[in-house]
């Protein structure tokens, strides 16, 4: 399947049912390669519509304590970026239709050569790349090369961005646009309860690709709030990664808890939101 089609196919399906697409996030290789693959299987089997997979980086400035802690494990095990991408290749082989996004930091893309890195991403079957510390004004460093490699570059839209910035984000983001409901970094300590939503309408007006909300979504209630605000999908990261942080020494319990959690969010996402919207 063409990389560019997987997100569209997913959103066509979820929106035709008035569902939200549910995209859970984990760091690849956490806590180790084998368990990471089992965790990802559990995400998919428990109702994920797509995946957002992160590479562990030494200096993750956009991440709160939960994801920082998780990123230390693959690094402590010398689980390389190469190994991380190869792991994603295995996930792709198993789930040929599933949209897979990569979340990374600029230096990991830059260090090996942007073209080399993006070609590797394409070769393992990644659909989209979100560079956490690349705002849209610096997009020219990566955009052309990503496009040539057949990858969709995703940008983040914050709630207080100017109209001009929102337009740039809508124009440049491919596959989906990652929308924030609050300021700050990843984590569940600050919930997305008082979400600002005015900017979502602007993004639609500027013909943004589908809107997927992240940061601060941890409970089914937040999913309904997001549906009310009118997004097309949601991402949960820290809530799942927190379960890994707590239980990685007891894989059976960890996988069960992840399964229970993901099912609860998937169920909320896969409710007919036509009435609530």
């Amino acid at each position, binding site marked *: 399947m063409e990389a560019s089609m997987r997100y569209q196919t997913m959103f066509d399906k979820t929106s035709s049912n008035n569902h939200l697409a549910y995209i859970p996030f984990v760091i690849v290789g956490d806590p180790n390669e084998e368990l990471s693959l089992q965790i990802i299987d559990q995400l998919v089997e428990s109702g994920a519509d797509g995946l957002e997979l992160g590479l562990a*980086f*030494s*200096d*993750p*400035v*956009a*991440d*709160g*304590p939960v994801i*920082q*802690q998780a990123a*230390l494990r693959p*690094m402590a095990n010398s689980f*390389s*970026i*190469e190994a991380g991408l190869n792991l994603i290749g295995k996930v792709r082989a198993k789930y040929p239709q599933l949209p897979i996004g990569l979340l990374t*930091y*600029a*230096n*990991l*893309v*830059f*260090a*090996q050569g942007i073209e080399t890195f993006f070609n590797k991403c394409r070769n393992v079957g990644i659909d989209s790349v979100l560079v*956490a*510390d*690349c*705002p*849209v*004004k*610096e997009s020219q*460093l990566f955009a052309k090369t990503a496009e040539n490699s057949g990858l969709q570059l995703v*940008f*983040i*839209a*914050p709630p*207080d*961005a*100017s109209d001009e*910035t929102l337009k740039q*984000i809508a124009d440049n983001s491919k596959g989906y646009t990652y929308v*924030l409901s*609050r*300021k*700050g*970094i990843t984590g569940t300590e*600050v919930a997305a309860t008082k979400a600002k939503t005015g900017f979502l309408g602007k993004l639609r007006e500027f013909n943004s690709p589908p809107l997927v909300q992240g940061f601060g979504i941890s409970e089914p209630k937040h999913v309904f709030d997001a549906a009310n605000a009118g997004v097309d999908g949601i991402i949960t990261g820290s809530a799942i990664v927190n379960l890994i942080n707590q239980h990685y020494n007891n894989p059976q319990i960890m996988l069960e808890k992840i399964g229970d959690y993901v099912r609860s969010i998937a169920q909320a996402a896969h409710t007919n939101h036509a009435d609530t919207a």
Partner: protein
Amino acid sequence: MSLNDTSSSKFEYDGAYIGQYGGQFVPQILVPALEQLEEAFENAITDDEFLSELNSLLNNYAGRPTPLTECKTFGRTENCRVFLKREDLLHGGAHKTNQVLAQALLAKRMGKTRIIAETGAGQHGVATALACALLGLKVTVYMGKKDCDRQAPNVFRMRLMGAEVIPVDNGSASLKDAINEALRDWASSYDDTHYLLGTAAGPHPFPKMVKRFQQVIGEEAKKQMLEQTGQLPDAVIACVGGGSNAIGIFADFIKEEQVKLIGVEPAGHGLDSDAHGATLLKGTEGIIHGARTHTLQTDEGQIIESHSISAGLDYPAVGPEHVHLMTSGRAEYVGITDEEALEAFQELSHAEGIIPALESSHALAYAKKVSQGVKQPTVLLVNLSGRGDKDLSHVMSVLEKGGDI
């Protein structure tokens, strides 16, 4: 002879970039905060009221102008004279105070009520704490847990002046992680909080702004050199960690083509060892802390911890302008080991009655090397960026271990 306009413009910022280096590689959420800061900065430096308030603080509170001292014996040979720009005499004990006062004033101008800062050795934290005490701003300083332990007196100084010091225990628990933590704080606090970054690194406009507020060092030194010797120095020598004292003393000499600019990096256990902080000489191009610059990293782009006997140079990246000055050939960068710096630290103390910071001791050690080799009459200007009191217990324990005291 000065460079003509065309070639000197290559040493000016074009938007967020100097040459191909710099930029604003931060999470999108932080872009408005940087844009607000850039606008306030550009506006302030053309505002007489701001500049006169800043000058008044620099002169009447911080003690500018600082003296230029010619060494009586250190580095003095038949052909060589060494002049020290005495930033060690600035209030706070290092050059850091110059730009901290400026940024703190700028923060007030932007209506911010809270300051956050990172610190390595604690010098920038101390400078920030004193400026915020003076100007009535709340301040939180992020400091690597390891640095808190090895620089306990500076932690106490900061707290004494009312700063909240938060030890950072994640990542490598040192300066780079303190910067990460400050950036994370800022991502949710920028409405009322200014991030007062301590060096000429980080995302635009920090490198340009810190340079602007440190260039007073070079401007004064140039005038003083002309007064005392009737000539410009043959070379200007400064240590480089993030690069603020170096860019500050270089700035006014960049257009003076005949003046050599020499940045001294911490070579730690040696440039060919794996324990140094020589980002320019041994690092590679990368994107870290918001800028495209040079950094110490693995082939896959993970940032590697640096090493230096001096905590203030212990940083695995460097300000983007230094990369530009190096690749364009305008400045030269060299390495000085821990051991060489330690020797210069003791020698300046003995010879001149001045205890230099371990950071500045790197620049002194290189000046000493140059002085021994010159065949032509040579005048060297060294930035004595800070005083060494903060390093006494550290140096004492190192020398005791070496049985050298």
